[in-house]
């Protein structure tokens, strides 16, 4: 890359995978110069290498050569009886390599966010479901409803990219309405209200099913809700969006998500409406899509020779690890450096982001590059239909997850 060159990159760090982020690259260092991600502060720091010494592999927290780390990891793997692979986020080729490894060593493979995946998947596994994607929402919706409280904090660019962009193909943006159901940050709401047509209905998320049921009934409603009912009934393309973790504290998250989907199905009898869940901050969609085409199951698979089986309870990695039904956990985490919780009663190999932090030090730490920064790769966006190409913009010698997993599998022996 030419010195001081400016270029656009695709961000690997949240499920929107924005590709309009401009960076200036100089001698393998880069500076983000785009204004549009200033609200994504928690993501920007993932780009940075804090300290070059972190590039080293470590055994029991002591620096060691990369080759020795791989050799030691292979020894540990060969001495283990039950290996569990926990995916905290990697690209398509990373997932492919995990599955290849799992087939060689009869492992369980799980994604750390599987419980959220199953909440959304539950709808299509039980009943009907109408879905839409980011660009459809941007160009066709006249009403967008967000359920939750943290959805905009987690994906701030939903506003400027999707809900209130500068241009929309088929709808008048001035009349587009955003309805917020839940406990949204008051200051942000106020700010949005000054620019756009936004209404905030502070509700207990547990009441979502009841409120939606009322809105679709002929019952008399409060003035506020009556206004919403009119908006909904007039809408021509309504989009409902949520992020499943926002329902963590609710009594029955599955029921709430199901009620939103039912509400959308009902609207489709006479008009058009669709769901668009926002999920995948740990490359969840990349994992579930790739696992589905290779194994038939989106997560939680146990390999056994040529065959494998799936059971979302038996193959729950968190349960397996906390019950010590495994003697070696291999954690793979390349899209952030969030704190990873390890169990000190079993062996732990960590393959991941150089700045990762832990409750206890892993037995073996093998740093790998970030897809989209240190190596090329593919990741899926939240809508599960668009996958993006992530480019390499920095050369620091870090290998990809695929490279490392293949070394551990002995693919290149």
């Amino acid at each position, binding site marked *: 890359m030419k010195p001081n060159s400016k270029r*656009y990159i*695709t961000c690997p760090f949240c499920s929107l995978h924005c*590709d*309009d982020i401009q960076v200036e690259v100089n001698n393998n260092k880069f500076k983000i110069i785009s204004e549009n991600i200033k609200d994504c502060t928690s993501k920007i720091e993932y780009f940075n290498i804090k300290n070059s010494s972190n590039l080293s592999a470590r055994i029991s927290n002591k620096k060691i050569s990369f080759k020795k780390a791989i050799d030691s990891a292979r020894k540990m793997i060969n001495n283990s009886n039950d290996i569990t692979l926990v995916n905290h986020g990697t690209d*398509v*080729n990373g997932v*492919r390599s995990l599955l290849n490894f799992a087939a060689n060593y009869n492992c369980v493979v799980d994604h750390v966010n599987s419980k959220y995946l199953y909440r959304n998947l539950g709808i*299509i*596994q*039980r*009943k*009907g*479901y*109408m*879905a*839409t*994607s*980011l*660009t*459809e929402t*941007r*160009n*066709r919706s006249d009403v967008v409803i967000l359920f939750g409280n943290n959805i905009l904090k987690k994906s701030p660019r939903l506003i400027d*990219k*999707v809900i209130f962009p*500068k*241009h*929309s*193909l*088929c709808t008048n943006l001035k009349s587009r309405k955003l309805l917020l159901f839940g406990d949204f940050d008051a200051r942000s709401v106020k700010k949005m209200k000054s620019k756009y047509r936004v209404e905030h209905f502070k509700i207990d998320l547990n009441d979502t099913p009841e409120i939606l049921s009322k809105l679709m009934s002929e019952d008399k409603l409060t003035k506020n809700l009556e206004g919403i009912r009119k908006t909904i009934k007039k809408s*021509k*393309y309504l989009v409902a969006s949520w992020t499943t973790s926002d329902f963590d504290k609710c009594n029955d998250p599955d029921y709430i998500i199901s009620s939103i989907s039912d509400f959308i199905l009902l609207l489709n009898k006479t*008009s*058009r409406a*669709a769901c668009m869940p926002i999920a995948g901050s740990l490359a969840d969609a990349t994992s*579930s*899509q790739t696992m*589905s*085409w*290779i*194994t*038939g*199951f*989106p997560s939680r698979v146990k390999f056994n020779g*040529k*065959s*494998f*089986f*799936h059971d979302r309870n038996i193959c729950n990695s968190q349960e397996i690890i906390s019950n010590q039904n495994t003697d070696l956990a291999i954690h793979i985490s390349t899209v952030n450096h969030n704190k990873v919780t390890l169990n000190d009663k079993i062996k732990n190999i960590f393959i991941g982001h150089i700045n990762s932090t832990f409750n206890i030090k892993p037995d073996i730490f093998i740093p790998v590059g970030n897809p989209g920064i240190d190596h*090329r*790769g*593919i990741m*899926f966006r939240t*809508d*599960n*239909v*668009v*996958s*993006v*190409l992530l480019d390499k913009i920095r050369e620091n010698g870090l290998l990809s997850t695929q490279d490392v997993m293949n070394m551990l599998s002995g693919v290149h022996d």
Partner: protein
Amino acid sequence: MNIKLQGGKVYDPINNVYGKRMDVYINDGKIIKKNKVKGKINKVIDCRDKIIMPGAIDMHTHIGGGKVNIARMMLEELHHDHNDGCDSSAIIAPTTIKTGLKYIQMGYTSCFEPALLPINARQAHSEMADIPFVDKGGYALLGNDDFFLDLVKKKASQSLINDYVAFILNASQCIGIKVVNPGGINAFKFNQRALNVDEKSNYYDITPRTIIKILTRAIYDLGIPHPLHVHCSNLGVAGNYLSTIETIKAAESLPIHLTHIQFQSYGNNGDRSFSSAAPEISHYLNKTKNLTCDVGQIMFGQTVTMSGDSMSQHKNHHHAHPDKWMCMDIECDAGCGVVPFRYSDKSFINGLQWAIGLEVFLLAKDPWKVFLTTDHPNGGPFTSYPHLIKLLMDRSFRNDMFEKLPKSVQEHSILKSLKREYTLKEICIMTRSAPAKILGLKNKGSLGDDCDADITIYDQNKKDVEDFFANPSHVIKDGKVVVKNGKIVNYIWGKTQTVKPEYDAGIEKILGKFFEKYHTMKLDNFKISDDEMTNVIGSEIKVNECIHKRK
């Protein structure tokens, strides 16, 4: 490495060879003439009691992309098929590995995904790259995307539209263009629930006829070998044969391929307002020069329907079995719908659909114009092809099956009166040579000199047709024996077949602005380069030639 297939009965329709006993020579992945063999023969396969054909080609099978993965996830409870040494995935929504294994074991060496959304191309190719053994390719969906409809609405020149079509083929690494329910998927996003061939869409004010006319012209002008691949308007609707005929006319004598035509051959006569219009459709097929079709035969049992036709899938979701389904609007590009379905041999409608498909096959005079498909998995899984071939080749077997259907079905079909039995020659044409020809695969579907050594060797001693086609003794892919006596002996990975017509780069400027203004990704991210195909997605590409230079 030289291989000799010694003394087999050879069927090679492209070279006009039918049942002739001869030797076939292979060198480094290619078939070569005897006089070109250099050095010693390294391996001889005794084929004296064998029948040799080119590897089979499935030109319409849903094997990759978002909708297939939705089906896999939706129907998790059906993944309990442990009977065959593969993984447990259901054959109606198999894993990529199982897809490759089952195809190669049946002697299929190339398969084409017919509904590849350009915006979803990266996923579809990534999935297909994980299918072992076979070559693959995709048909890019156009005709419901807002950019195209906007061009048509603004009366853009045919030349500009040709640039767009050519760009899409290059950017999505596809080999053909398909249109599904022309304009209908887009109209559904504006809440239209049906769109007839001469009905204007509410928002763009464009008829399906116009879309067909423009796209068939674009493909002809660009010299793309495969004609426009059309899933017609009103799929599955009683009386839809009229829409099908109007769609044929919309092409204005330019080449057109109608897909899963069984689903488009329905009349609305009789006491149940549902009847066979196979004779009417076959009449058009036989008399229209540039018309080809694949059948989309249905098979009784559980399957899952997956289609870009979200309008029709939403309409049909009430028939879902098990009772769950999904429809999606996708990126101002297209849509999709996944609806599981069980075809029952006790049902009048399903029974008649089965008979209609067979009627279409048996009334088609020219096997070069009709292709054997079940629209996997929409009509049934591809593993039912050997059974379907037996239905076509064995009249008494066919009639026995027909007599098991409800009397009402038998009264509404002419099937029993059709005495035709397909010959081995005709089956070879419709499953090998004809698909290769219609897709422009010059090196496939033939055992001629310098063709790809994709070869299926059948055991002549197998007297049951279904057993014969289900269990070839050897399958050779790219010159390597990959199946021997039904067992996989070699794992290899095929290529992605593409075509790259030329276009004026100016279209990228126009489209780039459109993406900047309306999309949520950049045009650069939409395009898939050859380098990405090979080094990130994981499949080498083979670029096939266009028929002629752009007109």
